[in-house]
């Protein structure tokens, strides 16, 4: 396509956007609402996913030692555990620390366990984290086989439940994002189709005086791009401002941190912009052809 034509088509597109105000307004606002909702859904999913990763990564294995294991044996067990593929971190918890923790969980300063107990009934132990939390049950089984390991726990039951929950949350959110994306495509395409329908006689006439399909399509395409990206831009501004103020307000929830990485957000915003542009063109593409057959 020659340069002259591109300029011509852009001019035509701008003119028609200005003259069909109702159609322009309807399409831009539809696009921005759809993309805003889609963007919010993606943000929520991103945050939920980060939170679930955090929950999952908290899952750890505790391996209890036999009561009469010697210091060197304990050290060699550490090496054996570290050698298991998928183990990320191994931390030693002495029996004294364990008692301290137990004391704490029962209510510190209320009962003095050490006072009540003549000797510490708890064993030394290792806390083990895995690279992939889903490997926990597998790795726990292998640690249990090591010499001098008396027992292994990892919140059996609870962990499986947690994984079951996160699996479902992920599935449902993918499904929802998919549904919203489909909805956005469909709604934007429908609005564009109605806007083009309102101008069907114009298209018909253009064909009658000899315009090629391409000649008619190009300005509509450019309109689609402008409408889609303009709508997306509006929604991105709203989303960015809203999310920023949410971050400030939810500061109290330090234990439930929101995604604040500017990189991740930037990627999201750019993707939304591209989505808008793409939907604008796609909507035009699937709508205009049925009016071109003259």
């Amino acid at each position, binding site marked *: 396509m020659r340069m002259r034509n591109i300029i011509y088509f852009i001019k035509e597109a701008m003119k028609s956007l200005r003259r*069909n105000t109702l159609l322009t307004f309807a399409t831009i606002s539809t696009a921005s609402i759809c993309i805003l909702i889609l963007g919010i859904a993606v943000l929520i999913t991103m945050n939920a996913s980060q939170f679930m990763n955090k929950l999952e990564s908290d899952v750890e294995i505790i391996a209890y030692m036999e009561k009469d294991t010697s210091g060197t044996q304990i050290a060699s067990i550490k090496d054996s555990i570290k050698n298991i593929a998928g183990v990320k971190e191994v931390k030693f918890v002495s029996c004294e620390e364990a008692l301290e923790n137990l004391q704490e969980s029962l209510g510190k300063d209320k009962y003095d366990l050490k006072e009540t107990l003549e000797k510490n009934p708890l064993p030394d132990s290792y806390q083990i984290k895995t690279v992939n939390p889903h490997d926990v049950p597998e790795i726990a089984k292998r640690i249990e086989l090591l010499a001098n390991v008396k027992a292994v726990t990892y919140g059996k039951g609870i962990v499986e439940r947690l994984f079951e929950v996160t699996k479902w949350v992920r599935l449902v959110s993918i499904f929802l994002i998919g549904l919203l994306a489909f909805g956005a495509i469909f709604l934007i395409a429908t609005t564009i189709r109605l806007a083009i329908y309102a101008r069907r006689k*114009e298209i018909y*006439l253009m*064909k*009658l*005086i*000899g*315009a090629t399909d391409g000649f008619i399509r190009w300005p509509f395409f450019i309109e689609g791009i402008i409408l889609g990206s303009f709508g997306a831009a509006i929604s991105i501004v709203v989303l960015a401002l809203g999310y920023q103020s949410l971050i400030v307000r939810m500061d109290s929830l330090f234990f439930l941190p929101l995604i604040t990485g500017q990189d991740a957000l930037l990627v999201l915003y750019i993707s939304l912009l591209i989505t808008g542009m793409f939907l604008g063109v796609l909507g035009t593409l699937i709508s205009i052809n049925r009016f071109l057959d*003259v």
Partner: protein
Amino acid sequence: MLVQFYNVSKIYPNGVKALDDISLKIDRGEFLFLMGPSGAGKSTLIKMLFREEKPTRGQIFIASRSVVRMKRSEIPSLRRSMGIVFQDFKLLESKTVSENVAFAMEVVGARNHEIKNRVPEVINMVGLKGKEDAFPGQLSGGEQQRVGIARAIANQPLILIADEPTGNLDIDTSNEIMDLLYSINRKGTTIIMATHAREIVKAAHKRVIMLEKGRIITDDSSGDYAL
């Protein structure tokens, strides 16, 4: 031969037989009037020429190309070789008078400076000077009709097809438009014009085809039209 119809019939999807076995030859440079009562099939015949409608039976050739068997991608170039004045004007509502005329030239890929020169020229020819920036909705019926005429002649087409181009014009304006058409015709453009204006046809002494109920009832090359 520029236009040839061979046994063309048109039956619309709702069963109406608009054309019935029409055969017809039109020479390059001819000026042809199509007459006949309302509903006789004049517009239908005209729509066949630029393939707004396809015949149900029969063959149509324009400049030796079959309009009926033409591929979809060839249609634009067929239409670009023609100027068409539509019975219902068919102006672009969202474009001004100038833009409507310019659009027809942009479609055929005319150069910018050509468009800039030609558009005011043809607007002037049809007597619409001063209305360049009006939108069709801001024009009288006859003014809209003349925009349609200006658009049709802008590209100096090989064939000019005019469906009732003076139906909304007073006699003086009609005569001016007819003079314009005659001069275009003299420069070589073939003109096919459907009309009800007996005065015009009588004065013109051109070939007249009378249609009735989809059939040609007279084809009078002498133009000694009398009814």
